[in-house]
């Protein structure tokens, strides 16, 4: 093994948290099972990316590529498995990510199990399968050795291979090095998106990302969610707000866990941002975890910081001039479809007392985003 290669297998005790992408495909809304499993995986120390309801096969496999997960789990209770799973396997091959095992859970007649395994599905679980068994299967699949050839990945990154970008982010997250290689300097505008939990950061990014794409810009998103300090697992839920529409190569989303980093961002976040920037995006949007008054680390990894607020959030942030209010380059009052938007705006203007921009938007109504996009593009 050369100095550039790093083996990402070995001892499960020291192995970083496995990553699984959980997907519901099609229109079936039965999500009790997938949600129970998502929480059980988190509690078992696994990072879970759930892409939400109503996904296509194509969008799911594109997400798996960008997230560089160890396993993709599909939940189907609509009896469409013999239509959906062959399509998933075809896409996996086309995208060149055949190293990612696919597993299936749901209402699947036992007679179909051998057929599914023969076509290449690694495991099939039915209602009543013990959670421990499912967790252990995912762990086994995730810890199978799949060495990353960092040198080759760097070469492929240079040729704009999105798989290589995804892989190299994993290398950073695993605490490995590039042995002196640095990504080329990028030209992207790097924007931090921060705000309290539930203020709608991911929905905002989904809408603003679409505006920027409509204007022809290539957009990358680095979204951070908290790691459980107890189990080391995480529910990475930001992506599910960003999954609308057809898959788009130039809208690259990567979910990261906060690990033991402080201040609302991920460990080695700056390195990830530089790597993504160097790949050739026009915008890199970095979403923090639900942030409090003193979560200001985002300032160090981005050029500008948008602080999101919502109507009646005055008490929570108190519009104090210290901390997170201080690092904001501009403010976005989200959820302006709710009552009291105007009152909150007035309160905010009077308490900030300077000329930093402030926009009112509503993700539900899809209103107000053009002005923000104008500012991001032109200033």
């Amino acid at each position, binding site marked *: 093994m050369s100095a550039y290669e790093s083996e990402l297998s070995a001892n499960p005790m020291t192995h970083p948290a496995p990553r699984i992408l959980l997907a519901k495909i*099609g*229109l*079936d*809304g*039965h*999500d*009790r099972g997938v*949600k*129970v499993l998502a*929480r*059980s995986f988190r509690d078992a120390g696994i990072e879970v990316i*759930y892409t*939400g*309801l*109503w996904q*296509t096969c194509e969008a799911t496999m594109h997400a798996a590529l960008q997230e560089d997960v160890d396993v993709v789990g599909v939940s189907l209770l*609509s*009896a*469409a498995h013999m*239509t*959906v799973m062959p399509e998933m396997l075809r896409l996996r091959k086309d995208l060149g990510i055949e190293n990612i095992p696919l597993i299936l859970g749901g*209402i699947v*007649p*036992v*007679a179909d199990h051998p057929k599914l395994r023969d076509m290449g599905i690694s495991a099939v679980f*039915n*209602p*009543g399968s*013990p*959670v*421990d068994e499912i967790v252990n299967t995912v762990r086994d699949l995730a810890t199978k050795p799949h060495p990353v050839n960092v040198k080759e990945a760097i070469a492929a990154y240079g040729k704009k291979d999105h798989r290589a970008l995804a892989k190299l982010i994993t290398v950073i997250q695993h605490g490995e090095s590039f042995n002196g290689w640095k990504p080329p300097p990028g030209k992207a505008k790097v924007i931090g998106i921060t705000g309290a939990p*539930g203020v709608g950061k991911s*929905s905002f990014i*989904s809408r603003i990302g679409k505006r920027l794409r409509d204007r022809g810009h290539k957009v990358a998103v680095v979204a951070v969610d908290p790691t459980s300090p107890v189990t080391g697992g995480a529910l990475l*839920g930001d992506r*599910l*707000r960003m999954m*609308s529409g057809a898959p788009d190569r130039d809208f690259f989303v990567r979910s990261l866990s906060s690990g033991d980093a402080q201040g609302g961002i991920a460990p080695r976040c700056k390195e990830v941002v530089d790597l993504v920037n160097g790949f050739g995006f026009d915008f890199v949007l970095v979403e923090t975890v639900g942030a409090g008054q003193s979560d200001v680390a985002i300032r160090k990894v981005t050029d500008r910081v948008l602080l999101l607020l919502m109507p009646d959030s005055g008490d929570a942030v108190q519009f104090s001039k210290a901390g997170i209010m201080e690092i904001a380059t501009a403010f976005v009052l989200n959820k302006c479809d*709710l009552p009291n938007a105007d009152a909150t705006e007035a309160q905010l203007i009077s308490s900030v007392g300077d000329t930093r921009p402030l926009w009112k938007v509503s*993700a*539900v*109504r*899809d209103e107000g985003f053009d002005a923000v996009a104008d500012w991001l593009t032109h200033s």
Partner: protein
Amino acid sequence: MNIKPTENRSKPTTRPVADKPFVAPEDLGTFDPKKALGEPGAFPFTRGVHRTMYREQFWTMRQFAGFGTAEDTNQRFKYLLEHGQTGLSTAFDLPTLMGRDGDDALSLGEVGRCGVAISALADMRRLFDGINLGEVSTSMTINAPAAIILAFYIAVAKEEGVALDNLRGTLQNDILKEFHAQNEYVFPPGPSVKLVVDTIEFCTEHMPQWNTVSISGYHIREAGATAAEELAFTLADGMAYVEGGIARGLDVDAFAPRLSFFFDVHNDFFEEIAKLRAARRIWSHVMRDRFAARDERSWKLRMHCQTAGVTLTEQQPMNNLIRVAYQAMAAVLGGTQSLHTNSMDETLALPTEQAAKLALRTQQILAHETRVNQTVDPLGGSYFVEKMTNEMEAKAWAIFDQIDAMGGVVKAVDRGYFRRCIAESAQAEQARLDRGELKVVGVSDFIEEGPPNIDILQISHETEEGQVKRLKALKASRDRSKHAAAMQRITDDARRGANMMPALIAAAEADATVGEMMDAMKTVFGSYDGGPEW
């Protein structure tokens, strides 16, 4: 049969059954039967909404059915009517439930799979071919596009010359529980509830025999809620619709009698009975005291029940017959007005004809052989059941207080309250299963090796191809200018906040499809991405 030896084979589960080995009269505290129970058919209706209950008339045996094309389902309807069923119940396929046409990209593999595919008026016409809509009562399980499906039904009735005030049936039309649990929402909560109130207003004026909303706990429970959460969330949703109707300017007594409820009946036999009794008592107080309803019919909570699909197991599927039979008995002892019994094969696939018939037979045996109908509310006065009923009620009021403190149901939806509670309860139940505190026969204990040995229903992919072809032909042959005008009217009426029903009926008659009408409304109402909690 190879039966694995298991430990604790005959010991009871470790889940606490009750605090004490038996309930004594003093455990009921200040319980006053006159106040807490009243007589059957009288306030607060704890013992039942009718004075004589099943002594005079059995509950309605209403089996949910629907698969494949409209013709397939039409055949099943006729079969069930011939075998003594007394009401029709329609299951729609996922594309229809989501308000999408069969040729939509997301419909792939799901057309006609879990229910009947209805994309346009022509499909509805075929669904009820040869069935007199003036003589049957039809229940339609549909929510986000409920107003459109109702428009189709009305259009078929008009073609057949059946007067609207003769139509009997129920529209599920309960969008709130979609946000809590079942996930078949399309528009944001505000406009979604507005559309429900539109149907309430329209039916109050034109279809007085129609049950406008079947306020449903079933899906909330199936998604993992506890019995108390199911009870409280469902009644809270009911209150939200009543508030909506009153805010629209309707007299509460003009529409409240046509609201009905739909509960899940799970395995915990006495808890389920207590839940149904508590539901009636709470609702009567809410309607009389909170909403000042004066008509006694507004105080009565009428319910449909369905046995709990989530309790059925794929392993040893015949065991499901037994589970369903016990659950059915709980529903009847709880005083339900109608009942669906699940088929034993529902965790494997949609029911075969044989399995569907056995499910109906389960109810017939219960009705005609067990004599559970010989007296009204036979468990009334049982110390245990009355105590449990009181506890259920107390838990529900505590939850109402929480919801009120959040500013009502729609605000609580926005905050992810319901989804969070349900997901947490589901995970807690899974944890109890994993720890061995809950036992499931054939799954956690008394396990047999080998695959289940019953036939299951197969549905061909031809359904989808046929439906897509018919849809194409319809779109090519319809009157374009009539269609365009009808579509324009939908967006116009949505913009000016009008009741949507007249525009939707006109669009149905212009052969507009479900997907087209939903998309037109989306341009005004917006769409919803699922709220804060997943």
